[in-house]
């Protein structure tokens, strides 16, 4: 039973909402969110600040969604839902980025194929495998490579390499701009992208 005395459950966009428990199952066109809802119901999915306010409220505000179901619980469930949707979108972006990312060509750099270098472990797939989805504690989701400086040289070019701009091409392919997101976040990492 919820605090307001409601009992039972209802369906919302293919997902089950139980009064007093929130969303308990969820499969919709963005994917299966049952796991997130279980986390939410267990009280782990919604970090709070020292005053007990829900930190992920900012995520909801960002996308302009407030009343997902009803009352406070609706907002919390909505933010978990949006967070999961953002991460699903980020994985889509990551997969596209990986699809255009190069592996090393047919010439080993300097002949030291087995040594670990500034390029990483010096495996041909180092750059491609370094493209990952990152989620910050405040719910910020972005995609990019932390393999510096190689990722930066591939993205912007260097004395020895032309500018390939893989990240910029991903951004263009997903119709992303610097205006829609927070510009400072876009350039925070060498080749990161704010997808959703």
């Amino acid at each position, binding site marked *: 039973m919820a605090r307001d005395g409601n009992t039972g459950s209802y369906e919302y966009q293919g997902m089950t909402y139980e009064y007093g428990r929130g969303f308990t199952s969820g499969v919709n066109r963005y994917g299966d969110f049952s796991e997130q809802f279980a986390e939410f119901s267990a009280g782990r999915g919604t970090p709070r600040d020292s005053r007990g306010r829900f930190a992920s409220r900012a995520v909801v505000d960002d996308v302009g969604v407030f009343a997902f179901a009803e009352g406070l619980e609706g907002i919390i469930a909505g933010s978990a839902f949006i967070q999961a949707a953002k991460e699903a979108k980020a994985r889509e972006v990551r997969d596209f980025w990986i699809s255009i990312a190069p592996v090393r060509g047919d010439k080993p750099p300097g002949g030291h194929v087995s040594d670990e270098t500034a390029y990483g472990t010096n495996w041909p797939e180092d750059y491609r495998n370094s493209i990952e989805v990152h989620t910050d504690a405040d719910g910020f989701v972005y995609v990019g490579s932390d393999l510096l400086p190689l990722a930066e040289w591939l993205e912007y070019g260097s004395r*020895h*390499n032309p500018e390939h701009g893989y990240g*910029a091409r991903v951004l263009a392919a997903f119709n992303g701009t610097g205006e829609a997101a927070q510009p400072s976040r876009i350039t925070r990492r060498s080749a990161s992208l704010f997808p959703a």
Partner: protein
Amino acid sequence: MIAPDVEELVVKYLSQFFPNVGIDMPSVPPTPFYLVTALASPSDWITQVSTVSVHAFATTHTGAAVAGRALHKVMNPWVFTPKLSFSLTSGTVGIDRFEISEVPAWHSYEDPNLFRYCGRYRISLRVNQSS
């Protein structure tokens, strides 16, 4: 079809303000040097949506920052209005849309003697525009 060259446009525009602008950079460039590079971009035969990088090089980090700031001052959406047109080798072109993808920021150039700030812009040009 008359396809405008976005690199030519940016070089021509920046040359109004800066002496050393080009798409080729000598190994020891005069500084500050502005290197213009168009990235792989789509065109639908009506609009060419080009992503362009402009690299501002200088011999010190501060010099590159100053050059990047000067670049940012002239590469902005308020400058590029549809009223503004440029005479290129392909004819006269105007800019349909101008977006800043990345403001100039420092990025490693793998060269201890050159410091680089890179800004990125998305510039939409009308493909068959000529008059």
